[in-house]
């Protein structure tokens, strides 16, 4: 299949390895990956911060870029949830019936990365090997908006040599929340402290998730505390055939 990668703005800028890993896994499975250079952002930061009308042109841009794509994949549950939960509302807010129709036509073809693998492509074993102790941070949007359920766990369970360690309170937010982490830095830090404590308690070497936004947040504290625990997007684990560099 021809799959168009929506890398997302922050993965593009901050986590290119995740994008490379997505390309690697999909090509390994025999699919063709394309990258549309006109892509920018899903509009979530503006929308969630209350800059609603400012988000609309960004949404329109996204829809224009992917209008004719066969399948779109994004390695970020929060960006996909932005589309599914809010795009239609945004179109209705500005009374743009055409945009609403375009959104409805496009969204059924947009998938989060692990969702694409398991639900659309029907694959759980992607041929990965990762000889490390790993714990999974269940990001909020992946569970409460996309309802991914055990999809990430099923994929990780098929990775050779990987030991998946359970984490306490997996349902609880890490405290990132986009601009929340800046506007309410103290509360966000307190939430993060609790999450990091549970991550460290697992004794895992790597904390993974389907969202780099949470991982960036969690790693920010892991690094500040000079722990040796690393974070890696699930795509990077699924792309791996040996171990960490």
């Amino acid at each position, binding site marked *: 299949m021809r799959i168009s990668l929506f890398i997302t703005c922050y993965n593009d800028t901050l986590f290119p390895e995740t994008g490379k890993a997505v390309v690697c896994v999909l090509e390994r499975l025999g699919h063709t990956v394309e990258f549309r250079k006109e892509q920018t952002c899903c509009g979530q930061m503006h929308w969630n911060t209350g800059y609603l009308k400012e988000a609309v042109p960004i949404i329109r841009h996204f829809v224009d870029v992917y209008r004719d794509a066969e399948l779109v994949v994004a390695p970020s549950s929060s960006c996909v949830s932005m589309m599914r939960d809010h795009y239609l509302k945004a179109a209705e807010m500005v009374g743009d019936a055409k945009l609403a129709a375009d959104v409805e036509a496009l969204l059924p073809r947009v998938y989060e990365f692990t969702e694409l693998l398991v639900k659309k492509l029907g694959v759980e074993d992607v041929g990965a090997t990762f000889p490390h102790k790993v714990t999974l941070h269940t990001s909020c949007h992946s569970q409460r*908006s996309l309802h991914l359920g055990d999809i990430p766990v099923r994929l990780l369970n098929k990775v050779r040599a990987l030991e998946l360690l359970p984490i306490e309170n997996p349902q609880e937010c890490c405290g990132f*929340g986009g601009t929340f982490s800046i506007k309410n830095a103290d509360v966000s830090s307190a939430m993060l402290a609790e999450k990091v404590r549970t991550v460290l308690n697992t004794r895992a070497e790597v904390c993974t998730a389907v969202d780099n936004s949470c991982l960036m947040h969690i790693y920010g504290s892991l690094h500040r505390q000079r722990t040796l625990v690393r974070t890696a997007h699930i795509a990077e684990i699924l792309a791996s055939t040996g171990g960490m560099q």
Partner: protein
Amino acid sequence: MNAPYGSHWADRSFPEAAKELLADSQVRRNVRHATDVIQAKRNRVVGELPDWEALREAGSAIRAHALEHLDEYLVEFERNCTRAGGTVHWARNAAEANRIILELIQLHEAKEVIKIKTMTSEEIGLNRNLEANGIRPHETDLAELIVQLGHDKPSHFVVPALHKNRQQVREIFQREMHLPELGDKPEDLCAAARTYLREKYLRIKVAVSGANFLVAENGAVCIVESEGNGRMCLTLPDVLISLVGIEKVIPRFRDLEVFLQTLPRSATGERMNPYNSIWTGVHETDGPKEFHVVLLDNGRSPILSDAESRQTLKCIRCAACLNVCPVYHQTGGHAYESVYPGPIGAILTPQLHSMDRGRTLPYASSLCGACYEVCPVKINIPEVLIHLRGKVVEQDQRTLGGKLGVWNIGMQAAGFVMGSAGRFTLAQHMGHLAQKLFVSKSGFIERLPFMLSGWTQTRDLKALPAQSFRDWWAHRELNGSTKNGAAREDRDGQ
């Protein structure tokens, strides 16, 4: 009396108030313990109902329908309550409600009243007003008694004193009930409250309550409680005054079959709370001889005009969203500086004030969505939070200060950048240059200026990598390596 709604609360921003509470490790421990216990109980009793989602769906539909016909159902309730011997009063605001209640109490020459926990009375500052007029209100719910005797504020609307532990409760009771020998076992503390209040139940002739539901069909009022203090107040005095928000009306008696399943399980994690009382008007041989309902608007009716946020008024005050909220877990209820804390408070408080106060509350959430997941009437709290953030931004953009504020300028600029890939790519490259000012030797950013400093208080930030994904892709295409495995080779070579 010119006390507007909630004027006894300070008016600090959420981040400011939260900072203070975050420093109180005792409060945080108490809040965490209490919410953990309720949550576990709630999950157990909700999990055993296979029709839970259907009950949520029905509850949501009934409440939404009631709001869409609120005027009709209120008039129907008034007619049926009056027919059953009750008297219905209407209060536009806190001042009117306070005046009506005060006059009713003065008419009966009462110097003391007994009260059931009612958030609407907190909302209008009733106790302060009564005290200012020489009338002593006695809270009878154990937690409200703790709050009242401790000269404190409620921090949760089902368990208002959950921020206090047993030792703290003992100290309050020892001092205020003159019981120097009192122990700190919950049993002892309950027994002390029982003795302290029983005398009052048997003596005081006027009671004030709220209500959980008003039934339009027959004018019935329903109150859900645990301790029996509610039943005491509802049945023993000669006069009962119930202060109820206008949104509390439901169409029919049988609708209670939904809410009496969802409310107790959500609120206290019980299959049914120990007591529910349902009555209509006045009964010759049973209960008060006089019954008054004061219907309170106080900022509610304007909320109906916004189709998006109207759902806020579906709330049945179970507080499940507080118990599950990771923000509430950290700060407890006082950080919200409102009678209504937690996620529901974050959307209700600013709306009750026409977005003039509590404007930082819509931002007091990471939008994790846990509140929506547990809400027994399916209020999409994250959606309303974002909607209200939109209103705050719009308001700000109407002022010069707001227009020139860091956030607005930053967001406008980001919006411009995201509008085209060319601009976005340029911004990435500029970010690269700019970060040179902040990146430490280890390749991390450990300190950022201005509004971004909040991040680096406790977190490092990885520096931007040398090459963005799109640059990598362009490079890859240039080399014509789009065959299978190319990405892996390239990646492994990093």
